[in-house]
């Protein structure tokens, strides 16, 4: 009995001393944290995607609590639901979130363009890009090795026929894929916009035509038919100004008139070619 006590008592005493030290230390050196911070952090989805412009959800939560001026509608993946919760917790006006989605500005799948080399290197777009700009005929186009699919937190991207496709239903508009693509083919656009120019080739028309049958040749047909003057040709490539593009009465005329069908219309069921 005494043997047990001589073992137990010292351990208990050491334990109590440690506990007392921790209690005193935590009381003396408590760091004041805004009590709203954990609540705000809880509202955020925790994907740490960085679409809000801060370093992860923790960074955004901190900024929201510390600075009244930070808007509550920056969380694109969380959309209106999260913005409403945040506004409630912080007691500020709720503003609508502009939902955004990623679109691929290339339509060169294996039906429209072809490979010129048999690439057997590392299965990564950035590695393939280093080797003479990739395996395809078009140096601007999708490399089709799925770097964007690998970073997508929603698994919204798949590679079909050598071209990346984004599932618009799953996409949360975080923009990780846009940062990853070595050819900068992915743009983040407001979800309400429906016209997508699916080509990024800046070569002259004839050269583009040789590389890909759906590459923009800069024929200016879309520029002429657009009633709002939203489309212009920059460096042999059609560029759309979404601030001017409205859902015009003859909606989708640019896509229908496009000679090479590189202008596409998207809605939630995906992107439509004409």
């Amino acid at each position, binding site marked *: 009995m005494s043997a047990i006590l001589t*073992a137990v008592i*010292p*351990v208990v005493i*050491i334990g109590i001393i440690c506990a007392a030290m*921790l209690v005193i*230390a935590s009381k003396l*050196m*408590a*760091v004041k944290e805004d009590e709203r911070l954990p609540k705000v952090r809880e509202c955020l989805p925790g994907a740490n995607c960085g679409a809000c412009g801060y370093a992860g959800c923790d960074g955004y939560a901190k900024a929201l609590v510390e600075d009244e001026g930070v808007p509550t509608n920056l969380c694109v993946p969380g959309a209106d639901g999260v913005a409403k919760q945040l506004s409630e917790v912080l007691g500020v006006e709720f503003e609508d979130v502009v939902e955004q989605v990623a679109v691929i500005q290339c339509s060169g799948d294996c039906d429209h363009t072809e490979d010129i080399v048999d690439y057997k290197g590392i299965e990564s777009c950035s590695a393939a890009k280093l080797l003479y700009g990739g395996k395809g005929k078009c140096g601007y186009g999708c490399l089709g090795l799925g770097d964007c699919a690998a970073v997508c937190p929603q698994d919204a991207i798949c590679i079909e026929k050598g071209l990346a496709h984004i599932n618009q239903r799953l996409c949360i508009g975080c923009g990780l894929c846009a940062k990853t693509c070595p050819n900068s083919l992915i743009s983040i656009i407001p979800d309400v916009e429906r016209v997508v120019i699916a080509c990024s080739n800046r070569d002259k028309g004839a050269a583009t035509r040789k590389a890909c049958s759906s590459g923009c040749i800069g024929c200016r047909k879309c520029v002429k038919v657009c009633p709002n003057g939203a489309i212009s040709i920059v460096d042999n490539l059609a560029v759309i100004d979404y601030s001017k593009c409205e859902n015009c009465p003859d909606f989708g005329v640019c896509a229908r008139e496009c000679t090479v069908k590189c202008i596409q219309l998207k809605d939630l069921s995906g992107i439509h070619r004409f």
Partner: protein
Amino acid sequence: MTKLIIILLSAVFINNYVLSRFLGICPFLGVSKKLDSATGMSIAVIFVMLMSTAVTYPIQMYVLNPNGLGYLQTIVFILVIAALVQLVEIVLKRYIPSLHKSLGVYLPLITTNCAVLGVTILNIDEGYTFLEAMVNSLGSGLGFFLAMVMFSGVRSKLEGADIPKSFKGLPITLIAASITSLSFMGFGGVIENMFA
């Protein structure tokens, strides 16, 4: 002085905690994926090893041994180290927030790390004096640092390598770890003879 140098070098190279004694394998495999997290973890380990030796050595010598309670070593050390790490975390958070931010994630992970417990117990078993024990802890921490940094380099090379599908992920990591530890066998007997 020579003895201290021998203790330091042999703790780093010959009795490397990760690669020769196979203690602390969990952080070695878990945190070695990126160089910066490997460095952060290792610095936290060095820090905690030194702190815990400084605390547990007197406890063993002045509390446990005089009362014939040497057999309580393991349980008391675990208790003390866990409390110590918590205390350090609180102190860091209050006074050095920047250090807390960089070590913060790793400190709780180390609380129950077997490499830290191993260092404190082996210091007693080897019969070191307090100074020798501290040098040994520093050397062990540095050895952990060396192993982590080296292995994070190996792993970054593995990322780009063309690995057969069935070996991808953990299997190839374990194979790489075993080859890395094999290379440390070469140090056996080198340092004792250096000063002989």
